[in-house]
């Protein structure tokens, strides 16, 4: 009985773990940088939704295909952000591209 309970618990943990792994997805957010502070950016997407995205040391930031520092991020810039997480909001930025102003954007 104890062995069966242990097996059931292990399977439940495995299933829960698989759920967590499945939940992580990649996102692309295209929009305008509203705010940059404390290793976090707020981007207003073209659909009007504002999302908060985390940055870390591995986040690659570039402009014209050249790597730049996080300090280069300024409010008003057009960004293409590829991030990773459970949801768009509070996802972790993998790559941020500073691009020319997007026509038809907000």
């Amino acid at each position, binding site marked *: 009985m104890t062995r069966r309970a242990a097996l059931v618990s292990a399977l439940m943990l495995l299933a829960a773990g698989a759920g967590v792994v499945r939940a992580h*997805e*990649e*996102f*692309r957010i*295209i929009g305008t940088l509203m705010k940059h502070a404390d290793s976090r950016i707020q981007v207003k997407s*073209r*659909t009007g939704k504002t999302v908060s995205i985390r940055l870390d040391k591995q986040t690659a930031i570039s402009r014209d295909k050249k790597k730049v520092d996080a300090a280069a991020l300024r409010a008003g810039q057009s960004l*293409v952000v590829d991030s990773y997480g459970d949801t768009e909001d509070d996802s972790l930025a993998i790559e941020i*591209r500073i*691009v*020319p*102003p*997007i*026509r*038809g*954007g907000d």
Partner: protein
Amino acid sequence: MAQDTRERQALGRASAAALAVATAVLATVVLPAEYGIDPLGTGRALGLTALAGTGVEEAVPPPTGDRVAPVQAGPFALYPAEYKVDAREFVLGPYEYVEYKYQLEQGATMLFSWRADGDVIHDFHGDPEGQASSTAAQSFDKQPRRQADGHFVAPFAGIHGWYWENPGGETIRVRVAAAGFFTVAHEFHIDRTRRERAVRPLDVISPAGGEETP
């Protein structure tokens, strides 16, 4: 002497009659039954041509099965269902992407043509059935292209198709047309939406009229 002449004439008549009968039997019975040669139509009338084995054989049934997989015989293959056709146009806004893939069984074939009206990042790839796309996807062509016309034989069962990304700030249109032994299409958008798209059966293609080209 007169007796000999009469006997010779009788023998000649008998031989001629025997030859005529033999010729008639040959033409009406033997040739149709043995060789399927039926100069007088008597073989067909008497049902003798069937004996020569020249009748139409019973039709072989097509392969059956739930999965639209090829049954290969050298360069020739049969499938348990007819092929499907499909055509789509995608409008990619600045930096947007789309993925469009068809469900194909292992060995199944499709023909395709696509065109983009601007530079796109492109990756023709496949995701094996039952495996996570992020780890198991296999890329088959990532060359920079604005268009492609080709055919594809699926190396494994799964979804196979294109990733197109607009790398710039101008809107781009991508048009794709395909025909093949696929069963359904899947469309993946930048907003994480995934749509299943029905592909069309062959009866959407009207038979061409009998007009001759000048």
